[in-house]
């Protein structure tokens, strides 16, 4: 006959928590052994596993006792931040938490096996709490992984669109590969920040390596040019193939905003000329220097 289930009956909690604490060492060892047997945390050394196991065990039992979700979440985030760089994967984290859950549950079965009714009450207290812990730890880990991956992707995007300082006051941005709206937006951000930190007066954007651009991206390009202007930098766009130029005209993109030059080399020369002209002007105030 099954004892009536009373969800949330925490009266047994203190007792089961102190049992788990009293048997801490043995339970921890058992858990660590099962982790090794299951080939989990293979990326970590034995010492590392031992130290993590110790702290996770204590935290697990603390959380069973206090029921504090915030504290566990914080802990789980910390833990995730630590172990993700070491190459630990999601199935491993879930695996070890569930193994611990099991090790502790069996310990409770063993202790209360004589009294079925009491055992039921103990499990009524233990199971919801243990399940909550597993979910929190699992979710925290997954969220942290997603955050890290997102950051890595952003870094890759930035690295693949390097802004180069060619000369003082002159930046070049050779774009290679397909440009989508997202990449174009990130590119604009990067370029404008580079204009500020390099105090650039001229920017050469080379799109020789861009196979095709649609209206959205073309407009993005135009906007980038305009934004650079607001920051006092002139822009030359180079490498505009006749195909792309035709497409843009057909799409009705306002090309008058862009000064275009044949290729990157030509663009840089033109830019130097623009800058050189300024420098010459400052050095000699005579009108003959005007061309």
């Amino acid at each position: 006959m099954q004892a009536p289930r009373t969800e949330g009956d925490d009266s047994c909690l203190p007792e089961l928590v102190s049992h788990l604490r009293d048997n801490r060492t043995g339970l921890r060892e058992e858990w660590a052994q099962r982790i090794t047997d299951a080939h989990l945390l293979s990326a970590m050394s034995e010492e590392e596993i031992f130290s993590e196991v110790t702290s996770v065990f204590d935290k697990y039992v603390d959380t069973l006792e206090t029921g504090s979700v915030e504290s566990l979440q914080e802990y789980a985030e910390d833990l995730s931040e630590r172990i993700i760089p070491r190459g630990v994967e999601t199935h491993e984290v879930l695996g070890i938490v569930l193994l611990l859950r099991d090790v502790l549950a069996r310990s409770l079965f063993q202790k209360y096996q004589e009294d079925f009714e009491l055992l039921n009450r103990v499990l009524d207290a233990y199971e919801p709490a243990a399940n909550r812990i597993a979910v929190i730890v699992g979710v925290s880990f997954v969220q942290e992984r997603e955050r890290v991956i997102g950051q890595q992707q952003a870094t890759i995007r930035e690295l693949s669109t390097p802004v180069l300082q060619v000369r003082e006051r002159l930046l070049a941005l050779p774009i290679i590969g397909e440009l989508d709206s997202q990449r174009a937006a990130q590119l604009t951000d990067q370029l404008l920040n580079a204009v500020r930190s390099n105090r650039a007066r001229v920017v050469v954007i080379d799109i020789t390596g861009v196979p095709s651009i649609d209206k959205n991206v073309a407009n993005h390009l135009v906007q980038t040019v305009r934004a650079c202007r607001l920051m006092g930098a002139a822009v030359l766009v180079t490498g505009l193939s006749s195909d792309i130029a035709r497409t843009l005209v057909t799409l009705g993109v306002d090309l008058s905003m862009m000064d275009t030059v044949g290729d990157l080399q030509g663009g840089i020369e033109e830019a130097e000329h623009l800058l050189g002209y300024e420098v010459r002007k400052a050095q000699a105030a005579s009108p003959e220097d005007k061309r």
Partner: protein
Amino acid sequence: MPVPILKQGHYLVASIQDALSDGEVLELQENLLKQIGDFRARGIIVDVTAMDVIDSFASRSLRTVALTTRLRGAEMVIVGIQPDVASAMVQFGLLMDDINTALNLEEGLEFLDRWTAERADADGG
């Protein structure tokens, strides 16, 4: 608190710290016009480095001040538009094509030097 205007050689420099109300814009304009007269200033630099948002009102105001002071014989340069603000402005559609812009105070001063030199050349014939 009115926008402080400093004298730098033949130029005036006004640094806008916060968002300006209608009244404050008018006040700035009047003060600039007065000082252009008092000091025979040839150029004005309006520094908007501290403006974290430039909306259509701000943009219109800056334009108005530029056009008005130009009528009085002083050329204006706006400096210090931040990257994210520049981005927002163009996405919004605030172009300011007819306004001079430069990266910062130093660049702005250089621009005014070139501008006044060119004008002197032109006048000199």
